[in-house]
């Protein structure tokens, strides 16, 4: 089956019938924005403007964009450390994200979180978490809170294929199913948990989603490069979560073009250049979506060019913003630790909270 046929296979699904041309173009725009943001971040990292770890989402853009496109105002979302794509998809600005990568005061976390820790609770985005699978039970908590408050939404909990072998993942599958929580676990399987391939890290029966079987949970494997299929299948499980309070486990196959993080100097050793090239040539989610929209007559070749140009300009402006932004004040080291201290509540008036010198 060719990629084109693949993409067309879910086109008649009801959720895709109501997918307007504007929304289709917006999805393409968002994927392009993520890609250009990540590619520039890569360069900035090499120029030592960005420190620490940098886990890029290039190759996986369709997953976050499709999922966010289906979120209602009542849905919540959380992910791991490869979090820039999700952040931009939910509507965080490139400026605040880039400034955070630079460690500047104008960053989304005021320079206190860095690449792996982007948050936007006002956009229902709960991070951005650095420890593999550490966010998974937090996803349980989001779903629990929705149900507790009787809000008819669902929680989307993203994780990588490496996270499925952490104990807390299995604990969380059990609790979600046992308590009928409105939760969708989304494994973004990019094939590698850092430098260890899926084959070398996971004992599975066909699909990672099969891990749901023992927990009496619905499961599905989705081709992450097929935007229509993503939407159709995600929509179904999100509706099941919202209206029946039933969790699901999804494996979405995808691929990352760069290393686990930029510091992953070995990423061309544990996989071949041909493998990367084959993916880029035949399975790239942006390329496939662009071809599909051209075929549908939703865009013209010039649309693509102008969207790409706009994305590049937006990233360039974000970099200027980050460059021009101030470093955080030294005194800010001691804020945002205890809410009571920050607001100066009665509870904070007595007692010592910090045990080093705080005068800087």
């Amino acid at each position, binding site marked *: 089956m060719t990629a084109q046929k693949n993409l067309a296979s879910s086109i008649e699904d009801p959720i895709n019938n109501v997918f307007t041309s504007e929304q289709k173009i917006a999805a393409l725009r968002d994927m392009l924005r993520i890609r250009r943001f990540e590619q520039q971040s890569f360069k900035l990292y090499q120029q030592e403007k960005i420190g620490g770890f940098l886990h890029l989402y290039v190759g996986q853009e369709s997953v976050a964009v499709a999922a966010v496109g289906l979120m209602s105002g009542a849905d919540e979302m959380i992910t791991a450390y490869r979090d820039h794509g999700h952040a931009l998809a939910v509507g965080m600005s490139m400026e605040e994200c880039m400034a955070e990568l630079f460690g500047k005061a104008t960053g989304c976390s005021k320079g206190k979180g860095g690449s792996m820790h982007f948050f936007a609770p006002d956009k229902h985005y709960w991070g951005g978490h650095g420890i593999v699978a550490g966010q998974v039970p937090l996803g349980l908590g989001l779903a629990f809170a929705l149900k507790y408050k009787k809000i008819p939404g669902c929680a989307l909990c993203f994780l990588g294929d490496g996270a499925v072998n952490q104990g807390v993942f299995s604990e969380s599958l*059990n609790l979600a199913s046992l308590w009928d929580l409105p939760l969708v676990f989304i494994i973004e399987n990019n094939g590698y948990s850092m430098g260890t391939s899926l084959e070398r890290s996971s004992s599975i029966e066909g699909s990672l989603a099969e891990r749901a079987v023992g927990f009496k949970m619905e499961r599905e494997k989705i081709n992450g490069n097929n935007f229509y299929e993503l939407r159709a299948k995600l929509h179904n499980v999100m509706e099941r979560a919202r209206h029946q309070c039933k969790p699901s486990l999804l494996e979405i196959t995808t691929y990352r073009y760069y290393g686990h993080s930029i510091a992953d100097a070995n990423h061309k050793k544990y996989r071949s250049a041909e493998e990367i090239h084959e993916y880029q040539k035949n399975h790239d989610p942006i390329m496939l979506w662009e071809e599909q929209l051209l075929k549908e007559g939703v865009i013209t070749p010039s649309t693509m060019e102008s969207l790409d140009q706009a994305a590049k300009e937006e990233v360039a402006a974000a970099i200027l913003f980050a460059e021009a932004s101030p470093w955080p004040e030294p005194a800010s080291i001691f804020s945002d630790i205890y809410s009571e201290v920050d607001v100066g509540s009665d509870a904070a008036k*007595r007692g010592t909270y910090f045990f080093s010198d705080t005068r800087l």
Partner: protein
Amino acid sequence: MPLIDYKTALNQAFAEELTRDETVFLMGEEVAEYDGAYKVTKGLWERFGSRRIIDTPISEAAFLGLGVGAAMMGLRPIIELMFWSFAYVGFDQIINNAGCIRYMSGGLINVPMVIRGPANGGTSVGATHSHTPENFLANTPGLKVVAPATPYDAKGLMISSIRDNDTVCFMENTLLYGHRGEVPEGSYTIPLGVADLKREGTDVSFIAYGRALLTALEAAQTLQAEHGISVEVVDLRSLRPLDEEAILNSVSKTHRVLLIDENKPFCGISAQIAAIIAEKAFDQLDAPVLRVTALDAPAIYSAPLEKLQLPNTQRIIAKALTLF
């Protein structure tokens, strides 16, 4: 004032807050239908139902993390650990998530959660069930840690902890659950970060918290009766935030200090307090800062030896006498 035990005082605090605030729920192993492994939550499930009082499977990492996620969304979870020793399988959730999310989000997210349960040795259950991780927890900026010794303090501090907008680690003690004391009916709060002078004295200051506070008070009585030494006993109650002022005031008054806790000595709570005194009250001291802590070995099973391992009145008195 009614005389009730420590666990009933806690139970009253939960009932008060569950009644007052719909966002409060209580979750843990055996907390509902079983009435709690130590009966601290007795009757709550019958009164508040399965939505608010929730039995969990044995999955500490998952339900601690669930608490963090629910707290981020504005609920106020009370998460019971059957033993604080079991926190070690969920440490990532406590330290990385409850402890760091507010900071890493630049203050966008609060985690108003109480994690509670007993953290003590002295019950012949061996090392794995006898840990006192208050020092590990207090070593994490972002977490608050309280360790009340009396039923009165337990109730007032629990109500404050549930209303607190940060995560509070509440250290209880199975050996204190049956201790009785005067506790007012109804709701009252004790602020975090405020120590309590449990006994006034002039010759030496004992600084303690939790069950060690009761041992310290007993030793203080004997020292007065048998040696004519007037001991001041400061109950920290709250470890982070810490009432440094109360510690320094007492040291400035007596000029001698003995730190007493059931924590291990290496980087334990008493080590931090010793450092504070050395830094801020050095000139006030007429003798070195001494400590009586748990003996520095894993908690031993054998009952007579375990009694030796934890601070007892004999060790406290002997150590105190060396200060003069």
